[in-house]
């Protein structure tokens, strides 16, 4: 598109003409680039997009208490970046206000909704994490020998609860009488659960001690504690978001990461930038990345679940075809 | 003194400056081996400073220190200790929460470790010099006399041959002083040298072999205790006669200001700190409370001020039962308070003088106007107090910490008098105050008494107590054990009652 973003009368005259490629603004969630997780994944998507379309990127990370999210977006818009991609649902509260003030700039929010915001220049890049988690549940139940699997959630937020819902549903779909242990590390609003590997280890160890042989870690940075517990107990674990087999950087842990439930933030971001360049970005709507678009899925690194690939593909197909509807919230 | 044997200690031309003060100027001191050498001088003359120099706590700006004829340089007390110099400070340097053993061996662990060998050595020392120490008692459980013996043991344990005692008798009653002097004689017999600081000239003459007098930071001469009178010594010290507290005619009236009935205050252990004390203070009367420190006087004061809850008994002020009143209400109703430790209870050191004038009288004119503090009026009144009570300071905005102790005390006295209290609690009103300020404060107390104020006077200075009081109450282990007539009692007798050596009586009580 040729919507040039010189918002707010900045007079900078910065233009993202298609000859030069877009001037992409990227606002990270706490942690910023180098978090080995969705921030990095988003960056990878931007990189790929630049590779394909040219252009440049400006990244910004929020301060320690993330009180300046709105400022990041404002600053990027002011400096003429367009499109601007906000990484993380925590931007949901501020993105609407900023977008309203810069109607000529396109915004996207990862894990958030563009519909509810009400501004017609915000696109939600959503992920059917419950679908991916469903497959994780399928893999866990199929591979479990004890009929007992576990789910460790980082923070009891709606997002993570949708992981739980999908995982449980997937496991039950394979073995209706399977035991699924569920535990969160910290309650809603207390984000320490995403950063406390020690607690992750302890919670997971409890599950292994109680008979689980596969535990799904939807716990951000605490997940590594889950892997440690798995390694210590000789059991297995499932990673989340990125292919943690690749990122964990420790052979002992690689050996226990059976699979990871992928959330292809990179693909979504790349696709979004692509459509921005095409001029097909609408705004005010959500792009749902699900199994059908391969926005979510399982990883096969390490080859631990290669043997059940057909089962997984089978369930994938059923979900894509709508034969199975994966719940978004835990049943109880 | 002969030149044949080298002197145990010789100080030559010692000068020590502090910011704004020259504490020692060109001081000479010569102490022979095996003698008890006294140093006398008024408050702030520089005695302690000189001793701290000799003990390596700071270095002199000028001058030399010679021990046994050899020059030494002390970088810190450890050096002094190694050279055989030990010091017992004016204010005890003991860690309350450590045991006697730990206090004694601290810093000298190399000698006998901190275990059984050390304990044996302490018991040996204790027996040899009759110190009566129990190595495993916590120091906080000890009385003043015992603490001092711990201090002496500390020095002896380090094998000191020269002992410095800075005002060792200030806090002791006469019997304890005698015990101490017994200990000193013991030390002398063993060939140790003792340097000894005191304000009590009679004592000095009794125990010392020679005397050095210091005035305004410099030596003014030496004296022979056998041939010099106290009066001469005093003149050397201050160039003036010592004032003695003398009560004028009795001004006691009939109306009671304060009546304590069965006042009991819970103590740390099973024994109450104040045990069933009953006494009356009338208008125009000074009731002196004598007692060795730690026998409940402080707690009694707290009880009268409402700073400590009563376990039993009543406090009546001018006919009104104030037992349940708060400290503030008590003060508002006419109790003035000169606390024992002015830095702890009497002043805000880091606040200006005018705020210190407000302290304790926050709700009264001229300091308060409704819920507000009237800063202007308080400042003005502070300046009045400074004028009337001779508080020497640059102005009402000076920080209290900048004042000398005497001036701080005068400000407190002025502040408490300004409210025109019915009853004044004066705890050690002249402690640490030099002769000049002392006599001013005595005069103020006497004037107040003449005007009908009732005064409770607590003091460790028995002369002061006897001289100012109309009635004397002796406290021992929390109870009043004797009521005495100050006109008919000597300091020695009083000391007897205070230590329990003499059984209680109500001799000549009013």
């Amino acid at each position, binding site marked *: 598109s040729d919507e040039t973003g010189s918002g707010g009368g900045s007079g900078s005259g910065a233009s993202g003409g298609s000859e030069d490629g877009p001037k992409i603004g990227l606002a990270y969630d706490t942690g910023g680039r180098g978090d080995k997780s969705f921030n990095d994944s988003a960056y990878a998507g931007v990189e790929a997009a630049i590779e394909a379309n040219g252009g440049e990127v400006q990244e910004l990370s929020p301060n320690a208490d993330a009180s300046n999210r709105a400022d990041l977006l404002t600053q990027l818009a002011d400096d003429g970046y367009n499109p601007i991609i906000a990484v993380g649902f925590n931007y949901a509260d501020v993105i609407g206000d900023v977008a309203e003030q810069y109607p000529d700039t396109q915004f996207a929010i990862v894990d958030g909704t563009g519909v509810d915001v009400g501004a017609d220049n915000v696109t939600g890049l959503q992920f059917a994490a419950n679908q991916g988690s469903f497959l994780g549940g399928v893999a866990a139940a199929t591979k479990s020998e004890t009929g007992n699997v576990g789910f460790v959630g980082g923070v009891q937020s709606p997002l993570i609860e949708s992981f739980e819902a999908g995982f449980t549903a997937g496991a039950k779909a394979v073995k209706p009488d399977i035991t699924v242990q569920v535990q969160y590390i910290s309650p809603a609003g207390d984000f320490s659960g995403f950063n406390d590997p*020690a607690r992750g280890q302890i919670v997971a160890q409890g599950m292994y001690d109680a008979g689980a042989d596969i535990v799904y870690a939807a716990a951000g940075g605490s997940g590594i*504690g889950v892997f440690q517990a798995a390694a210590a107990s000789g059991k297995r674990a499932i990673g989340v978001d990125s292919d943690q087999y690749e990122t964990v950087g420790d052979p002992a842990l690689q050996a226990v990461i059976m699979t990871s439930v992928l959330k292809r933030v990179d693909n979504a971001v790349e696709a979004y930038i692509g459509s921005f360049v095409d001029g097909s970005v609408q705004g005010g709507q959500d792009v749902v990345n699900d199994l059908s678009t391969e926005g979510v899925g399982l990883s096969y690194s390490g080859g631990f679940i290669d043997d059940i690939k057909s089962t997984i593909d089978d369930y994938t197909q059923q979900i894509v075809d709508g034969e199975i509807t994966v719940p978004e919230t835990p049943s109880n | 003194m002969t030149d044949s044997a080298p002197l145990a200690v010789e100080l030559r031309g010692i000068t020590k400056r502090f910011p704004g003060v020259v504490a020692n100027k060109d001081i000479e001191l010569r102490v022979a081996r095996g003698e008890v050498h006294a140093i006398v001088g008024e408050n702030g003359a520089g005695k302690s400073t000189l001793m701290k120099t000799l003990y390596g706590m*700071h270095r002199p700006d000028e001058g030399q220190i010679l021990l046994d004829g050899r020059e030494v340089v002390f970088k810190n007390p450890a050096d002094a200790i190694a050279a055989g110099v030990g010091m017992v400070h004016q204010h005890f340097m003991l860690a309350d929460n450590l045991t006697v053993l730990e206090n004694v061996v601290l810093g000298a662990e190399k000698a006998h470790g*901190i275990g059984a060998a050390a304990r044996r050595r302490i018991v040996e020392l204790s027996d040899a010099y009759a110190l009566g120490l129990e190595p495993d008692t916590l120091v906080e459980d000890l009385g003043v006399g015992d603490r001092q013996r711990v201090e002496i043991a*500390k020095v002896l344990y380090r094998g000191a041959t020269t002992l410095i005692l800075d005002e060792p008798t200030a806090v002791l009653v006469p019997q304890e002083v005698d015990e101490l002097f017994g200990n000193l004689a013991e030390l002398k017999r063993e060939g140790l040298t003792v340097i000894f600081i005191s304000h009590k000239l009679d004592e000095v003459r009794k125990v010392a072999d020679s005397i050095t007098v210091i005035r305004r930071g410099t030596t003014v001469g030496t004296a022979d205790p056998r041939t010099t009178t106290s009066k001469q010594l005093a003149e050397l010290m201050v160039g003036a006669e010592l004032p003695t507290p003398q009560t004028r005619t009795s001004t006691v009236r009939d109306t009671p200001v304060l009546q304590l009935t069965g006042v009991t205050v819970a103590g740390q*252990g099973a024994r109450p700190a104040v045990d069933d004390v009953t006494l009356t203070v009338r208008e125009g009367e000074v009731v002196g409370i004598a007692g060795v420190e730690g026998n409940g006087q402080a707690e009694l004061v707290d009880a009268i001020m409402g700073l400590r809850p009563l376990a039993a008994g009543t406090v009546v002020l001018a006919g009104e039962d104030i037992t349940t009143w708060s400290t503030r209400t008590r003060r508002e109703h006419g109790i003035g308070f000169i606390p024992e430790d002015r830095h702890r209870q009497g002043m805000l050191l880091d606040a200006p003088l005018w705020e210190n004038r407000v302290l304790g009288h926050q709700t009264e004119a001229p300091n308060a106007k409704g819920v507000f503090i009237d800063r202007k009026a308080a400042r003005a009144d502070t300046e009045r107090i400074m004028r009337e009570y001779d508080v020497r300071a640059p102005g009402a905005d000076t920080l209290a910490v900048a004042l000398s102790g005497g001036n701080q005390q005068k400000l407190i006295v002025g502040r408490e008098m300004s409210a025109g209290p019915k009853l004044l609690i004066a705890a050690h009103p002249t402690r640490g105050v030099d002769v000049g300020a002392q006599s001013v404060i005595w005069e103020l107390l006497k004037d107040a008494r003449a005007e009908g104020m009732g005064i409770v006077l607590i003091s460790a200075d028995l002369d002061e107590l006897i001289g100012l009081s109309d009635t004397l109450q002796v406290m021992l282990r929390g109870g009043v054990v004797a009521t005495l007539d100050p006109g008919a009692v000597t300091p020695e007798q009083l000391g007897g009652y205070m230590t329990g050596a003499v059984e209680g009586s109500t001799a000549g009580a009013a």
Partner: protein
Amino acid sequence: MSTAAPTTAAPARGPVTELFLGGGRGRRLTWILVGLLVLVSAVRVISGEQALTSSSTMAATLLLAVPLLLVALGGLFAERAGVVNIGLDGMMILGTWGAGFAGYQYGWQGAVVGGLLMGALGGLLHAVATVTFGVDHVISGVAINILAAGVARFLSETLYVDNPAGGGVTQSPAMSSRPPTFSLPVLSSGPDLLGKVEDLHWFLVSDLAGVLRGVTNGVGVLTVVAVLLVPAAYLLLWRTSFGLRLRSCGENPAAADSLGVPVYRLKYIAVIISGALAGLGGVFLVFIANIYREGQTNGRGFIGLAALIFGNWRPGGLAAGAGLFGFADALQLRSRTAVVALLLLVAVLLLAVAVLQATRGRFTQAITAAAFAAASLVGYLSIQELPEGIVSFTPHITTLLVLSLASQRLRMPKADGLVYRRGEH
């Protein structure tokens, strides 16, 4: 609670009290432990919450308690030397960072050294500020907490982003080797006799087996070190001349100074040890995760400080404090329903307090305790499972409860927190 609390002169008491409380600290401690075990065991049997004494919970307790223990020991050294150390959390953060940085390059041994060094560096900074410059201890500590977080982030940002070994702004690469763990042969591993006994769920016997197995199975090397550090700290501080000197600085530095004790130097040493121990606490966290992760300490420095105060500035006491907190935390992480069973325990304990107070004639206290006991009991009977938000603060409220129940005989070092200036005392 604080079992090592100083015993003041014992007031006269009845024969029953005498049986349990007489006979010195050792016997009393034993009785208390036995009593607690019986009580907890009974509660387990009644509520059916096996997690209360399972070896798994005990192992988790150990994992949660050890970092607190290390931090609290760090606090002990500083505060016994008279320096309040509220910067422990910051030093712990530095410790985690140092462990992560050295760990990925030199393995677990390197991590230990790195964590100790970085923690010690934080301690050194605190010492410079408080001892040399005489800055208020709390202020300096708060500043160090802020600074440490910034430094860790900054160092990661400059050293890990684009580092081929991995890592990023919020985490280090993985450690290149793993610390060893130990298990008791036969009893806790191999035939695992204790494990078998534990699974029988017998009253008392299984509980004891669970506790023992929990603390002897797969125990990490740092756990062993930390546990040994408790008696070691006691011996060092109370049985050596170094310890005596150090403590004298916290009780009366002027006195120590006058005896030739190098007060400033000792305070420096103490605060540096303090930082190093806090750093070691950080290393422990890194060992669990195998990496440094930003925010890993999660306020444990503050909790460790609380354990120190809880334990009356004594090694045994702070270990008890850390243990209690760790247990409550393990329980809430493991099982939300077990936390409800804890209410039963609280009810019984409060009832005991009520009876004790009543026999002593303190009826208001007795009635208050009884009322709270009744409330706990009602809570136990009516609540199935507590919501996550409530469960999450189980350890904190437990600590607070115990502290407010235990009559306050806490005594901090007398000169703790006071700035000491030579000649300005």
